[in-house]
């Protein structure tokens, strides 16, 4: 392999690095004296151009390769993931543009791009070192993004909590990875699976698996490793929180699934009711069940929309883990479809929250009262997002859940299989409808307080949020747009 080949394979990421440097240079050298708003528009424009150039490159130059011992895998599946991540990044930047949480807009956009680079490398690697490194790149950028609002003490606090939990998780994951490396002598996921497959499931391997699951469990905020999520979501500036909740979730879930399915192929075990066999599947089944129960129940008690979205994110992590433990092509496809549509939905919801916060200071329920009269378009979009999160047809959230549950039920035919988890998930989705409707009740039924600001949201933000809402509806009505491609890509990628 020569360096030129490597460069062309990593071109989308390289383009983003260049864009990030360009944003920094433009903001710090040229635009220094301009008002913040202008600088933000320029920085966002450069970032979006960078992302679009990356997308353009990926879809015009068909590449299929796995180089450097699986460190960089370029195939239709990773291409699809990267495209989704780039789209989410563009929307995050667009949602941020009119916000007023920092004067350091160049650094903000650059860090968003750098975090995206981490996520893109993350989804396209099958090698332990690359996974660790890109995970750290992503997390480090996200810690900083969470602390971006230097006027608010809450922001620093959120970032610190996120950092402490993230650091501990990284240490756990690393120790687990070291044991895996020791047991297999390899760092490539497929080679690890090959080395492990002949062996019986011994205690040391279980240790390694559990530690890795703990590490990744933190990243996807599954119970009992979720403690950082509510505070990080609430304290971080809303656009950063949106990015933490959308892009990083997509990438983490994908790599979590990949590590488990590729690296630990052969030591799955089974989570079948009354027929558990130890392996990684029952461990994840436990996380999934706990996350669904705890996330949904805790969300009911929330009085702040951002915290509510955090607990709902924990619950959704529980549903998505069903896709991981289904462990077949259907499972991967439904998982990816679910997390992508979830990310779009939650990004839009955070966009609405950001506008409300701007008008009334924070995101308490009361501040949403009467939003339907003040900003009918945003209120309608918020309704779409909430109903999609709750899983009401014909929105994307419904089909996401439907495919996930169908894949989980279909995977194990014996002894009721994973039906117990699916029943739990359906029951918990019903519970979740209650708190999503609470938000909608505030928006549509409650009277706006007399002191409510009468300012109108800008057309631009309304437009961005409306596009996200439209995407949620379209993906819900025509899931095959994404799902068909996914299944095909998984087949080509040879994941199964």
């Amino acid at each position: 392999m020569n360096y030129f080949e490597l460069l062309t394979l990593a071109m989308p990421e390289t383009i983003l690095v260049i864009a990030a440097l360009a944003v920094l240079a433009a903001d710090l050298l040229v635009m220094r004296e301009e008002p913040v708003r202008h600088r933000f528009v320029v920085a966002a424009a450069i970032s979006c151009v960078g992302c679009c150039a990356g997308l353009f490159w990926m879809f015009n130059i068909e590449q299929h390769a796995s180089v450097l011992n699986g460190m960089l895998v370029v195939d239709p599946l990773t291409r699809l993931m990267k495209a989704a991540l780039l789209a989410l990044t563009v929307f995050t930047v667009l949602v941020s543009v009119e916000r007023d949480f920092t004067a350091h807009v160049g650094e903000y956009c650059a860090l968003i791009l750098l975090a995206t680079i981490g996520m893109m490398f993350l989804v396209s690697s099958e090698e332990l070192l690359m996974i660790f490194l890109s995970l750290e790149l992503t997390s480090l950028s996200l810690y900083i993004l969470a602390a971006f609002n230097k006027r608010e003490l809450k922001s620093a606090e959120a970032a610190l909590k996120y950092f402490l939990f993230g650091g501990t998780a990284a240490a756990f994951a690393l120790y687990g990875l070291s044991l895996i490396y020791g047991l297999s002598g390899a760092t490539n996921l497929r080679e690890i699976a090959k080395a492990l497959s002949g062996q019986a499931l011994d205690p040391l391997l279980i240790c390694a698996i559990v530690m890795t699951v703990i590490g990744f469990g933190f990243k996807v905020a599954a119970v009992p490793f979720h403690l950082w999520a509510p505070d990080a979501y609430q304290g971080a500036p809303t656009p950063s929180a949106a990015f933490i909740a959308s892009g990083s979730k997509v990438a983490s879930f994908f790599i979590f699934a990949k590590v488990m399915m590729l690296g630990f192929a052969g030591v799955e075990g089974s989570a079948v009711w009354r027929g558990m066999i130890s392996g990684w599947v029952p461990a994840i089944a436990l996380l999934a069940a706990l996350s669904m129960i705890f996330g949904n129940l805790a969300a009911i008690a929330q009085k702040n929309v951002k915290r509510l979205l955090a607990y709902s994110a924990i619950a959704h992590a529980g549903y998505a883990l069903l896709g991981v433990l289904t462990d077949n092509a259907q499972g991967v496809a439904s998982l990816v479809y679910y997390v992508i549509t979830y990310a779009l939905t939650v990004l839009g919801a955070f966009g609405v929250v950001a506008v409300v916060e701007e008008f009334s200071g924070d995101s308490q329920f009361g501040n949403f009262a009467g939003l339907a009269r003040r900003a009918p378009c945003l209120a309608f979009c918020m309704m779409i997002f909430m109903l999609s999160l709750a899983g009401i047809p014909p929105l994307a959230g419904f089909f996401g859940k439907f495919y996930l549950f169908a894949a989980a039920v279909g995977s194990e035919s014996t002894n009721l299989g994973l039906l117990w988890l699916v029943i739990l998930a359906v029951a918990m989705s019903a519970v979740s409808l209650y708190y999503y409707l609470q938000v909608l009740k505030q928006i549509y039924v409650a009277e706006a307080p007399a002191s409510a600001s009468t300012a109108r949201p800008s057309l631009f933000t309304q437009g961005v949020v409306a596009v996200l809402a439209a995407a949620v509806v379209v993906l819900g009505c025509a899931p095959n747009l994404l799902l068909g491609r996914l299944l095909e890509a998984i087949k080509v990628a040879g994941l199964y």
Partner: protein
Amino acid sequence: MQDVLFYCFAALTILCGFMVVANPWSRNPVTSAMFLVLTIVSLAGLFTLLHAFFLAAVQVLVYAGAVMVLFLFVIMLLDLKEEARRKIRGFGMISGGIAVAAVFGIIFKTLVFDTPRLSAGLSAPNLEGVTKPLGETLFTRYLLPFEILSVLLLVAMVGVILLSKRDLR
């Protein structure tokens, strides 16, 4: 000779590690930082015993040199004195201690009962962690991670400047 050195360094590592975390005489972060330096140096000794000479050097240079200076710098900058007066909650201490003891018990048990299998298929160790092969691997097979590391350092740099700079407004 090697074994004696191993036991010395291992004991020193664990002892100093303990003093970092739970120094019974002092709650001062500076003391902890000093013991962390000792831990790291004795770890470097263990690395040398494992023939990882380059890493031992890097460990001392980067950790004991750069990271610890950073720690001490921040400790001095923030002037954290009232520290020592906090008292520790009994319940949290006990439950935390039990949890960690359980984790340790599990790892220890699996290591002791399982390493024969771990090391069963291995030949006699003859790997030399000298600079040349490491450098060659680093710039051929591990070129891509190396480049990503530079991006990561850029992130850290931007972040640190941004976070620790005083805002003018």
